[in-house]
Each structure stands twice: as structure tokens, then as C-alpha cells.
């Protein structure tokens, strides 16, 4: 039986889709069987970031409404040998086309076949969020080092903590700019983690390579030489239960370093 992990944030544009694509890719690189599910109905992106747009025949709404079998709608990522699949969102419907009960049923059947189901959640706390969380076992909250993003992350964490079937959420801080943190123009990692008081599972630098890779439909996690790629791969290893200390580029400040070590039980 696999696990479903929802990637959420509250605020839009902080990197949910990028994080979903890269965590999914990194887990597949670790040999896990992964299914990415785009629940951003009406504003699908995950297929583009994964470079799989042209292979879409059916989508999530087709599956839920019984117009096709699940396996017919799943798009296989050819870069992996049968390890990575995408269930794309519908582009022509809206979020109310699916309800949480249907999502739960769908997740339960996907969990029979996949080790990890990565659910890309739409922004907001409405129907789309409820659908995305419905079948999840774990949650990762993505934020950027901005006050408004952290505020929305806090709101989402409060909602996630009320979900009985979801384990306590973990935090990814995305788009870190070391020089702005050092100068105090951006919230630093320590401030964010003490404020949100949930476990930090990774930090990702702001990196032009991420944007370039996404635009080419090649998630950055595939490129072994990029800083962001290492960050995503480390997040995947932490999801798998390994204790991976922060890498040098993640070493934004000492306080976090020791905190992460504490979280992952490293001396």
C-alpha cells in the first residue's frame, strides 16, 4: 500500500507545482513507483512542467466521471522505466467537477499500485484544496520567505492539523535568496520555522535553472549538477526516512542546521 502526499501552500505561485514535479521525479530516481496527480482543475500546469502535455488523452475528471479507466488516463514518463506517471487535471472543467469523496476513492485505488502519489494542490482553501487533501496521508506545505506566503502557510497548516487522516505537515521553504536573508530583507529560515513550528523537510534556493528547466519540460531534479536539484533529491530522501543533513548551499544559518539535525536525529 502506497502513501499519498499532498503538496500545498495556500498562497499561489510559491512553487507547489515545481515542488510536486521535482519531488516526484526525485522519488522515481530513487526507484520508487510514483504517480503525480494534478488537482488544479482548470489551471493545469504539472503536465507542462513535466513535458508531458502532448500525450494527454484523458484527465482526472474523465476518470472520476467514469468516461475512462484510470490506467487509460495515466501518462507515462518515458524517461523512467515504468516508474513515473502523471494523472493530468482537466483543463476545460472547474474545481467543482470533482468532490472529496471521489478523490478519496481514486487515491485508494492508486495506492494499490504506486509507492507514492504526489498530489499537486491548487492555491486557496476552497473546493480545490478540499479535493486535494481528501485522500492524502501526508502533507508538505510550501512557502517562500515572504510574510504573506508564511501567513497563508500558517492558515493552511491550521486546516491540515484538523484533518484526522493526514500526518502532521512538513515544511519546504522555496526560493531562498541567501544575500537577502543575510541582509535581513527577507525572513530567515529560523524565523519561519519557529513561527510555523512544524518540521522542516527542505529548503530550496531561488535558482534560474529551475525556471529554465520547467520551461523545457525537464524537471530540474533530473540534472545532477544543480543546487536546486540536490535540494529536491534530499527532500525525497528525507521523505523516504533517511536523515540527510542540510547541504552546504542550504546552509543558510547555523540555527537551522542544528535544528534540522535534531529533526532527523543526526548527532
Amino acid at each position: 500500500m502506497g502513501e499519498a502526499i499532498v503538496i500545498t501552500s495556500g498562497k499561489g505561485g510559491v512553487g507547489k507545482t515545481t515542488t510536486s514535479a521535482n519531488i516526484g521525479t526525485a522519488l522515481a530516481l530513487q526507484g520508487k513507483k510514483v504517480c503525480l496527480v494534478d488537482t488544479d482543475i482548470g489551471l493545469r500546469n504539472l503536465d507542462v512542467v513535466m513535458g508531458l502535455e502532448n500525450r494527454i488523452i484523458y484527465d482526472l475528471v474523465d476518470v472520476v466521471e467514469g468516461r475512462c479507466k484510470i490506467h487509460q488516463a495515466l501518462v507515462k514518463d518515458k524517461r523512467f522505466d515504468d516508474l513515473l506517471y502523471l494523472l493530468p487535471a482537466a483543463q476545460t472543467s472547474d474545481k467543482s467537477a470533482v468532490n472529496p469523496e471521489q478523490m478519496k476513492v481514486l487515491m485508494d485505488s492508486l495506492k494499490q499500485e504506486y509507492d507514492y502519489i504526489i498530489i499537486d494542490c491548487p492555491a486557496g482553501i476552497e473546493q480545490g484544496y478540499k479535493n486535494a487533501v481528501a485522500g492524502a496521508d501526508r502533507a508538505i506545505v510550501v512557502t517562500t520567505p515572504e510574510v504573506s506566503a508564511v501567513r497563508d502557510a500558517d492558515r493552511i497548516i491550521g486546516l491540515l492539523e484538523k484533518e484526522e487522516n493526514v500526518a502532521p505537515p512538513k515544511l519546504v521553504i522555496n526560493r531562498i535568496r541567501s544575500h537577502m536573508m543575510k541582509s535581513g530583507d527577507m525572513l530567515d529560515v529560523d524565523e519561519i520555522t519557529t513561527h510555523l513550528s512544524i518540521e522542516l523537510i527542505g529548503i530550496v534556493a531561488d535558482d534560474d535553472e529551475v525556471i529554465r528547466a520547467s520551461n523545457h519540460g525537464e524537471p530540474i531534479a533530473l540534472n545532477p549538477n544543480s543546487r536546486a536539484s540536490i535540494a529536491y533529491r534530499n527532500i525525497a530522501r528525507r521523505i523516504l526516512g533517511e536523515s540527510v543533513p542540510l547541504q552546504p548551499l542550504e546552509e543558510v544559518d547555523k540555527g537551522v542546521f542544528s535544528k534540522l539535525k535534531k529533526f532527523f536525529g543526526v548527532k
Partner: protein
Amino acid sequence: MKKTQNVLIKGTKDGLTLHLDDQCSYEKLKKELNEKLTENQRVNEEHPLITVSVKIGNRFLTDAQQEEIKTIIRQKKNLVVGSIDSNVMAKSDAEQMMRENEIVSVARIIRSGQVLEVPGDLLLIGDVNPGGKVVAGGNVFIMGALRGIAHAGANGNSNAVISASLMMPTQLRINDAISRSPDFTGDEEKREMECAYIDHTDQIIIDRLQALMHLRPNLTRLEGGF
């Protein structure tokens, strides 16, 4: 011999005290009260308003009945009812009183969009984040950081206080006084171990936690000494 009186009027230096017998029927009591006040009315004519405190012993009066008694007394022009004292109270009122005097402890983080309300004092073992809110009928004690809104004495208690290990609220409210954080905080100094209370000018003042023992000695509930 004259039958026993169910209504006794006594003058004290603070006004009048009416003792109402708690054994006779309520109807009888009302009738006698009416008579008694009518026969005494003349005496009070030249006085301004006189406050009456009503003592009803072990009798329980519903709110409606209390109103009735007050109306009877008020009809005698220069009498106003200050208080109605009974030795007994309804169980539901007693329970409410207990709740309002209770300290409720809660261990969690009050996050953006969440509101935590308690009837009495609140002991929060955790933080109140920006966008989060705690409301208490009594005092608010926060062991962690207060970054959101705290409202103490929400049912009209100006003596209530708010204290926090880290006092950086967006807004403080005590009873109906409100104070908000400055719009532009310069280099944020750490505001640790502080308390907020209402002073005699109805302003919310922030002080060291230790000031409370002098300002609000009632916060100590320890019986005897140590």
C-alpha cells in the same frame, strides 16, 4: 396578636434594606410588599432617590420574578433597587460562575484564521500567530509568543490582564479597550515577559510581568501564605 411580618424595612446609613421572608408564598409576599410600601410612602416624600437593597434569604427568584419585585419597588417614586441578594442560586448560574472562574489550559498553536474562546482564564501553552485570536472572559496567559490578537475580560471585565512570554501582538483588547501595534516597528526589540492591563485612564498599558502582583493582587488565589 398581629401576624408575623413577611416584609421588614430597615434603614441603614447606605439606604434602605428590605428583608423579604423566604417561607411565605410568592403571591403573598408581593401583596404584602405592595401594602408595606404604600403605607410608608409618605415618609419618604421630601427625600431624593433612595437606594434599596433587597434581601430574600433562601428564596429563589427567577429573573422575571426579580423584575416584578423591582417594578413594585420602583413604583414608589423615590426608591430604586440597588441589589437583590439571595442565599441560593440556580445550578446553571453556579456552573457558569464556576466556568468563569476556571483556568482552562490549552496546549497548541493558534494559527492564522483560528479563534480560541474560553469563558474564564486562558493558559495557552503555545503561540498565537498573526491572524490568530484568543478570547477569554477572564485573563489571558500565554506561555509562548503572542503575535496575533488577544482579548481579555471579553464579558466586561476591565481588571483582566494579558501576559505573554513574547509580547508582539497585532492587537490587544481588554474589555472594550483596544490597542494596536505601531504601524512601523523599527529594529524590533525583543519584548519578553510582559503584561498588559487597563489603567485608571482606560488605556491599555504594557509593563513588566512582575508589575502585576502589585496591580492585580487578586491574581493570587493561594489560600493562606507560604
